[in-house]
């Protein structure tokens, strides 16, 4: 998960010192997951990349205001979502975003060096279990666990109730917990034989 304190430092460096290196780092940190999120909404990689780039251009243009942003992750995801909606409204589709239609495939962020504490096998099991979650459940889970958004923020971002986010998160944990347990059991049986 992205560390809020690191994001905060980048945010301050950009806002207070016009730090282009910090801006580049912020871009590299968020670009992949924001593009995947946008693709899940507008179903076009080209448009998604354009939208995310536009959001980052705005971030630089209005960098003096950046320090006032309380949660930059939430801010960026919301900005991308709003731009996606605007894009829809600008086109003939005039479609509403339906969360059930979102088939998000975030690039997994579980390649952080800090995660060396967890064995590669354990990570693989968890990723496999995450991959098997229903699309809406997977999207909510990833926004919470990989992007570090709060339940309240995910609810606002996806226009859901907090209760729905809670339910989807408990479903995700239940399925992942059960999958890990089942796989360990299989491993134990296999070892005995």
């Amino acid at each position: 998960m992205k560390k809020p304190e690191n994001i905060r430092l980048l945010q301050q460096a950009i806002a207070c010192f016009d730090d282009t290196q910090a801006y580049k780092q912020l871009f590299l940190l968020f670009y992949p997951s924001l593009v995947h999120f946008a693709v899940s909404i507008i179903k076009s990689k080209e448009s998604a990349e354009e939208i995310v780039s536009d959001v980052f251009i705005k971030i630089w243009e209005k960098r003096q205001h950046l320090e006032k942003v309380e949660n930059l992750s939430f801010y960026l995801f919301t900005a991308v979502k709003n731009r996606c909606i605007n894009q829809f409204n600008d086109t003939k589709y005039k479609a509403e975003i339906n969360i059930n239609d979102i088939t998000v495939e975030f690039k997994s962020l579980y390649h952080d060096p800090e995660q060396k504490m967890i064995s590669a096998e354990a990570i693989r099991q968890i990723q496999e279990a995450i991959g098997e979650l229903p699309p809406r459940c997977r999207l909510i889970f990833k926004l919470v666990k990989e992007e570090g958004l709060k339940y309240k923020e995910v609810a606002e971002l996806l226009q859901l109730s907090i209760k729905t986010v809670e339910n989807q998160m408990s479903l995700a944990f239940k399925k992942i917990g059960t999958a890990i347990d089942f796989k360990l059991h299989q491993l134990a049986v296999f070892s005995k034989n």
Partner: protein
Amino acid sequence: MTIDRFWELLSKKHCGEVSTGELNELEELLRVHPEWKKAAHLIRLKFSINSF
């Protein structure tokens, strides 16, 4: 219903969304249902908010 509540509380705990009251409720559930401790332990080991 109780097992669903267990997963709800466990997920909230590992996402930093749990209140003190809910944490106590989770502990009480684990006291009444010690068979669920294994699941809680697995989640804590492999899926803790600190490790991820």
